[in-house]
């Protein structure tokens, strides 16, 4: 129902068309939230631009309130981070605006304390997220 039988779910689904329609009335754009499910690794649909790319195949899609990718092992990329776990490319053309700021919404699972993960923006300095604090909660 969400546009998976349209020829491009990112631009021709009813929600993309509604959003375009309401913006055309003159409303300002607050932003968008996109799930990692919007990737070729999860869906076989052909679209103009999937925002997420799984660089390493997740073993499960079952974390968080909607399905997110689960990577099963400690992972340190080779080649100075050029082969990461996954990445997000802001779909400027599909959404109709240049993404200039972002929030990463993530789940802090119950588990071993002291674990962490890292990300960077456009290959910049790595940012470390301390995780597994026992909080079992969503954060950003």
């Amino acid at each position: 129902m969400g546009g998976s039988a349209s020829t491009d779910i990112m631009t021709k689904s009813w929600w993309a068309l509604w959003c375009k329609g309401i913006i055309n009335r003159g409303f300002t754009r607050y932003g968008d939230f996109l799930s990692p499910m919007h990737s070729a690794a999860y869906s076989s649909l052909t679209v103009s631009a999937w925002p997420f790319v799984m660089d390493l195949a997740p073993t499960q899609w079952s974390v968080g309130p909607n399905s997110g990718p689960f990577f099963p092992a400690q992972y340190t990329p080779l080649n100075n981070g050029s082969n990461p776990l996954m990445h997000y490319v802001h779909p400027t053309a599909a959404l109709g605006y240049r993404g200039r700021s972002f929030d990463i919404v993530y789940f802090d699972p119950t588990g071993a304390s002291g674990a962490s993960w890292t990300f960077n923006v456009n290959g910049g300095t790595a940012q470390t997220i301390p995780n597994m604090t026992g909080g079992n909660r969503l954060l950003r």
Partner: protein
Amino acid sequence: MSITSTTPGWADADNQVVIFVSQTLAGAMQVVGVSSYPGSSGPGTSGVGFVWAAFSGMTLYELGKTQVGGGSKFYKIEQLLGPTTAVPTVDPPGTGWPISGGFGFPFNSRLMFVGLYVDGNLYPGTGLAGNTTTMAISGADPMDFRHYLRRLRQVNEAQSGSLLFTIGNVPSGATSDVSTTGYKSQNIDSYIDQYDSVARARGCAWLSHHILWGEKGFSMGFQNANDLHPNDAGNQARANDILAVT
């Protein structure tokens, strides 16, 4: 974690890339999604925000699953609806669970469209997903479905917000001009009843293409003969109808 113009690597450019690089332990990195904003210092205070949380037709399947670490997906939605400082300890939450709506975007908007679509609903029991012969799926109990529709509305209500349930069309397959092979479409009405029930009890609205298209989605040109998902014309029609009431 927020990324703004002061974050190393940031650029005022199209197609900026957020790269999720490493984790020190299995499952340490569990990204639910990325919010993007047109301003360089984070979100503004108002405007149209859109949440692409999942493939909506899969939502019941997703919500019916037990997630890694235990607890249902609904439990995590409940967590999003509560304040970020609280930790739920029971599943489903007890009567003392707050509904302050503290998390903010991508939840807790003043105007919410909720379309937890039910094209793959398979409760009770399990069946095979429509697009594969190997993936057994099971949907959520309709009463659980109702409970969380109500909770979404309660949070929205507490913020003096408005909510529209957008209900998709699931033809019967038996008398419709659209095949629904692979789906237990006979169960659809029990879920739609829950939208109606919550809308009446909680003062919100619904727009049903299940009524507007009914058993004739193919002859109307909005669904293909072998797929209950709307085609391009169907998606455009749905967008137009929803725009007409917003």
